[in-house]
């Protein structure tokens, strides 16, 4: 109850009109940053940071935390409307949300995404308020073997996001894994497949890969036919603007899976909301009924609900190691950590003791931010959907221009834009050959982390694979991985036998 009282005190500290205005401005900036392909929460926080220098610490932290949080809402809007995820976790929203747009459910699906984000974020925040110190302690038990198995778990969801041919999904994942290995190996310093370009030493930026495989590919596929478009979105009359009772019934269990999965993954430094959203989607697909299985890949609203709730629950979870241990789990939390240090706070075990009001004010500002985003999400989707009225012949070339600007913003350098062009050709051919893009994205994200974790694990154990069995948490994860691999075909066989 102490935690709740402290949280209410923190909430009281930010309910002034000035603080609420700051939260609203931060929310809108963060939302815009999340919605624009190529822009990230990290970049938006870094840009806003100097502007907060003269502010009261609580106000400054409210602005920056609101930006961080709202960005995780924004990525779903372009994903659902034009199949262009604003950030990597929104890939699932593109996979399931865009087909729903083509069925006249754009506004309803955006509202589903925002409501799901709100649920995941708010419940995740509740976990943080009550469980942060205990969870931080648990997170310290996760070493390289556990991280490797988390990644294996993530890879197992490749099949879940492979709509259509499983073989092509596997090919896509392997291609993504190869892309993920480009650059300098962090443990041995060996340079792999950079073709002599020093700009590739840090690997292919994920943002560039995602923009190329989604944004560029979709735009060119739409433009490569004069007149009749292959992927029509214009002139689709809205069927309804709100989720119906059936969709609400499907969303509720998806929220539960998404929130729990997302929060647990988010607590682990480095795991990230992308893995959380893919895993939550995979679990939801695996446990769906026979009748709903056919919907996945063609507009399953529970897929959007699971992924978006997981994304925002992971964003909440990422605050746990940052606040409780002073360990940033991502680039966004690293910049936030820097901001807290700038304001004279020292995140870590003593934060909640020495700066109770400010620590809980940070959490309370997240709550205010999610409420503002919920309002945006309930009121503004009809406005966003006006994008669909823009003629395809104008919309898709402009999307290409936005992609170029977004890609340039990655390193403030032209090289990633050249890379975007080359990978865009690959993405176009992948789309034409019906090779799904999400497995490539997932594998490109996971492969570097998997390799490093595996190498570190074997170094720790002096080459013995027993390390994955000897540690209790690792053993539990190994059992879950095995279940993840054998359950889907078993469940499918059982469903077919019943039918």
């Amino acid at each position, binding site marked *: 109850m102490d935690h709740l009282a402290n949280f209410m005190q923190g909430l009281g500290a930010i309910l002034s009109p000035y603080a609420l205005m700051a939260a609203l401005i931060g929310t809108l900036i963060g939302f815009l940053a999340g919605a624009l392909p190529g822009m990230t929460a990290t970049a938006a926080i870094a840009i806003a940071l100097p502007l907060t220098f003269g502010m009261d610490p609580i106000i400054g932290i409210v602005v920056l935390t609101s930006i961080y949080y709202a960005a995780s809402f924004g990525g779903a809007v372009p994903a659902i409307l034009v199949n262009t995820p604003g950030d990597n976790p929104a890939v699932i929203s593109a996979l399931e949300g865009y087909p729903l747009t083509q069925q006249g459910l754009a506004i309803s699906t955006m509202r589903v995404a925002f409501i799901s984000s709100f649920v995941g974020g708010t419940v995740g925040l509740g976990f943080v308020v009550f469980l942060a110190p205990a969870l931080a302690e648990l997170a310290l038990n996760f070493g390289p073997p556990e991280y490797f198995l988390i990644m294996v778990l993530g890879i197992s969801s490749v099949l879940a996001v492979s709509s259509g041919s499983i073989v092509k999904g596997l090919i896509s994942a392997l291609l993504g894994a190869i892309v993920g290995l480009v650059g300098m190996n962090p443990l*041995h310093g060996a340079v792999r497949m950079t073709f002599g370009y020093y700009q590739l030493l840090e690997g292919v930026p994920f943002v560039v890969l995602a923009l190329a495989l989604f944004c560029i590919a979709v735009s060119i596929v739409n433009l490569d036919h004069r007149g009749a478009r292959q992927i029509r979105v214009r002139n689709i009359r809205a069927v309804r603007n709100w989720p119906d009772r059936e969709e609400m019934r499907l969303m509720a269990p998806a929220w539960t899976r998404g929130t729990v999965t997302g929060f647990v993954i988010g607590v682990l430094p480095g795991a990230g909301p992308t893995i959380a959203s893919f895993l939550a989607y995979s679990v939801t697909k695996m446990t769906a009924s026979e009748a709903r299985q056919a919907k996945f890949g063609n507009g399953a609203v529970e897929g959007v609900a699971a992924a978006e709730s997981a994304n925002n629950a992971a964003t909440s979870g990422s605050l746990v190691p940052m606040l409780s241990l002073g360990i940033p789990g991502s680039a966004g939390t690293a910049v936030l950590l820097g901001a807290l240090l700038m304001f004279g706070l020292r995140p870590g075990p003593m934060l909640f003791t020495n700066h109770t009001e400010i620590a809980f004010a940070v959490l309370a500002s997240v709550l205010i931010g999610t409420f503002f985003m919920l309002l945006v999400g309930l009121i503004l989707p009809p406005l966003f959907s006006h994008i669909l009225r823009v003629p395809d012949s104008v919309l898709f070339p402009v999307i290409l221009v936005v992609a170029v600007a977004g890609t340039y913003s990655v390193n403030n350098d032209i090289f990633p834009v050249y890379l975007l062009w080359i990978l865009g050709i690959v993405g176009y051919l992948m789309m034409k050959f019906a090779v799904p893009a999400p497995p490539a994205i997932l594998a490109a994200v996971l492969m570097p982390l998997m390799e490093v974790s595996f190498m570190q694990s074997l170094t720790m154990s002096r080459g013995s694979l027993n390390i994955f069995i000897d540690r209790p948490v690792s053993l539990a994860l190994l059992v879950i991985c095995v279940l993840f691999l054998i359950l889907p075909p078993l469940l499918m066989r059982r469903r077919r036998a019943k039918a």
Partner: protein
Amino acid sequence: MWKSNVLLGLATAGLALYVLNHSSRLAYRVGFGPGPGFAPWWIALTLLVVSAVFVAANLVRRDATLPFPITREALIRATGLFVTFGAAILLIEPFGFTIAMALFLIVVLRLFEDRPWLYSIGVGVLAAVAVFALFAIVFDVPLPRFVRGFI
């Protein structure tokens, strides 16, 4: 369309062979654990096997369909679009983002989409300026500008 799948399989098999060759020059094992050549070697080998099986299966079955048919017209238009896109990207540094992207949009709208000249120029310039304003002014991204640094 099974021929497209065979082509895809052959292309990915070729990539797999390249990665196998590249990774064979890196250390497979270092100390107690895998070296930098371990992961790419196994991934490339898996890709080669999967590609070979995929090609063989399509040569036997020959019944695949594609959601977006690959027609000659589509390939020619796509090639033209990528060439135009690439040329515009090359113009970004010497001429600035706004001018390069405005030219790109004008060319696409006029030549590829048959829009009137006035429409193409109007939409092209407006959209390029709007995107520049959003990224360079709102988000302070230092997009390349033309000579005097204005736009």
